[in-house]
């Protein structure tokens, strides 16, 4: 999978800002810095997708769909950082 295009990255960026606003989360960076962070995470995920996939045991790696792996990854990250969505 390639990096997200500009439209998709913008959608992530705007949705993040709306979530922060709805939650009343304090954000100490400006829009440009937040957008740069979104871009950086996407680039990192693109560059390291194979590495994450290879970290899975063979059963999961070979049987789960990409979407199922993505949900598993996001759940683990959210729980690790105690984030409620």
């Amino acid at each position, binding site marked *: 999978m390639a990096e997200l295009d500009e439209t998709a990255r*913008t959608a992530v*960026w*705007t949705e993040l*800002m*709306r979530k*922060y*606003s*709805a*939650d*009343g*989360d*304090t*954000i*100490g*960076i*400006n*829009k*440009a810095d*937040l957008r740069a962070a979104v871009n950086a995470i996407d680039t990192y995920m693109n560059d390291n997708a194979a590495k994450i996939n290879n970290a899975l045991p063979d059963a999961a790696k070979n049987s789960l769909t990409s979407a199922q792996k993505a949900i598993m990854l996001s759940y683990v990250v959210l729980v690790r950082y105690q984030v409620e969505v």
Partner: protein
Amino acid sequence: MASGNTLLIFSPQQNEPPASNPATFDTRNAHLVLDFDAATNESAVFSSIMPRLYAGGGLTVYIHYAMSSATSGDIDWDVAFERIGDQQQDIDSDSFAAVNSVDNTTVPGTSGLVDIVNVTFTDGADMDSVAVGESFRMKVTRDATSDTATGDAELVKVEIKET
């Protein structure tokens, strides 16, 4: 009455949302506010009659706002007037004059603190020549595509004062 007097005060519930990209109602600790998005230029529109105490001078529009989440960055606001008057404006269409702005205001370092910024208008075309006793509309827009603060801006109140 003349310079320095408050002419009108608008609260969020007086918003007459425009057809496209309207600011949206929200509450913050039971304060009714209008949310202005961080990625799209959204607007609120307020209508009234220019009070009889108005002496024909320029106007200063004070915008009272807080940020939903941002504690850094800056914010830009645009304000424009539309004279409705006495057979001046067919209300089937819009005819707002050019906007005046207050730009690059650093937002409060604490989310929830209400900041007050102001936009000035000279008497005449700058404020679409709104005269005493005439009805008019005023549009307040967050220029989100130009400012840098993340998240929503929350409009709390707007005051119009004769400059």
